[in-house]
């Protein structure tokens, strides 16, 4: 599904990532973990086309997508969410999700201004689609609330609903559990599994180890910009290098 090979990123002389490679299998939930400053978010930003890496390649479904801008990647079926939820704060919850259906609709400037019949029909279709995803994530009763007024937890769900509205093949989540309480985290785990069950590949960067160990099929561990380990949760938990990286040196 997603192949990352030899990613190196240098910011003004500082190497943030060094030759990171891994594959992500279709239909898996894959976790990317590592201590703070390990380069996880940088890696996500590269994969999702926000940064352009110094070197290395990203392949999506067998096509080279290195250096493509995020909007092209979305067209190809890859979306992401952000650590500090990037909502469209001035718009309602419903509108937020409707933006997610942008790539699935095509009325132009003129059709929209004139409200031509087929663009009105499309508008209905968009609304119905958005409603479906609001229900899927369980926030449909909030649809008229302004997104800026949502609690953090609901905002997180909205961001996921919005990303799903793009109907992606793969979704990247940057610390989806950050800022959630334990109840919300449990619900999130459930939701992520449901997403996987829709046939969508999930990749997440996460610090909440309980969550990661609970839901991930595979885990990639980064430390200081290099890949430290890769494997199933069980394997990772037993890996001495990983334990050292997290809890400090065992000397």
């Amino acid at each position, binding site marked *: 599904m997603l192949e990352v090979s030899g990613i190196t990123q240098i910011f*003004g*002389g*500082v190497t943030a990532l060094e030759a990171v490679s891994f594959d992500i299998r279709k239909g898996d939930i894959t976790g990317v973990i590592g*201590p*703070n*400053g*390990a380069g996880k978010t940088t890696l996500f930003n590269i994969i999702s086309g926000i940064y352009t890496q110094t070197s290395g390649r990203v392949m999506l479904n067998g096509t080279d997508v290195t250096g493509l801008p995020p909007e092209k990647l979305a067209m190809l079926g890859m979306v992401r969410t952000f650590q500090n939820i990037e909502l469209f704060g001035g718009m309602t919850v419903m509108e937020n999700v409707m933006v997610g259906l942008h790539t699935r609709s095509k009325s132009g400037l003129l059709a929209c201004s004139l409200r031509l019949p087929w663009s009105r029909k499309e508008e209905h279709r968009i609304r119905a689609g958005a409603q479906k995803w609001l229900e899927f994530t369980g926030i449909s009763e909030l649809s008229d609330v302004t997104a800026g*007024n*949502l*609690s*953090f937890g609901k*905002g997180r769900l909205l961001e996921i609903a919005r990303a799903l509205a793009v109907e992606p093949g793969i979704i990247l989540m940057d*610390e989806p*559990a*950050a*800022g*959630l*309480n*334990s109840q919300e985290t449990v619900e999130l785990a459930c939701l992520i599994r449901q997403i996987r069950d829709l046939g969508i590949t999930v990749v997440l960067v996460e*610090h*909440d*180890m*309980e*969550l*990661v*160990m*609970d839901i991930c099929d595979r885990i990639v561990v980064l430390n*200081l910009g290099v890949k430290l380990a890769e494997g199933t*949760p*069980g394997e990772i*938990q037993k890996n001495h290098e*990983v*334990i050292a990286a*997290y*809890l*400090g*040196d*065992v000397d």
Partner: protein
Amino acid sequence: MLRLKKINTYYGKVHALKNVTLFLAEGEIVTLIGANGAGKTTILNTISGVIPASSGEVLFNDCQVTALPPDRIVRLGISQVPEGRQVFKPLSVEDNLDLGAYLRYINGESKVSIREDMVQVFNLFPLLQERRKQLAGTMSGGEQQMLAIGRALMAKPKLLLLDEPSMGLAPLIVQEIFRVLNQLRQENGTTILLVEQNARAALKLADRGYVLETGKIILEGSSVELMENADVKRAYLGKDRGLP
């Protein structure tokens, strides 16, 4: 020395700190540990006045310092070494250290005594002395971390707040930094509140620790107790699935 009483802090919409109560005695090293987003940095920023608490109080030497702006807090003797270093990259190492003593300059303290303190910082981190004319932005992460600590020390703080000094650094450098912190406590009696993700290293250095989870303190105790505690391990590596 420092006492937080029922602090609640909001970070935009996020209820980042929930009824946080903690204390530091003079000369102690206390560490705050917990997963990312647990609220460790928010505690430091609440103390420093960067993010004002919405309720609760912060007492420093039994004085109310709750809603003071950052520069007033520094004036009282609390210095923060912020997360991600945040040294002044376009300025030289020496200038960075000078600015650490900004308030002392403003208060008309003699340049000589400030110079002397700079020599002390150079004694702690000999590397900085070699690089004194270099621009801070051109140094490695570890060197920047040393500079950030040195800058905070230039204010002659009674209480030092450190936010993840080990972040993104190689183990050897982390060891070096922790060695200096230990030295500081022993030689100067500086009180230190240390936020760390590298729990084991932090607990080894600290006298006591607090464990945070989603804005709440869930555990507290001496370093030895916490080190042995299974919950701490769980907070970092997740539940052992007990795979065969």
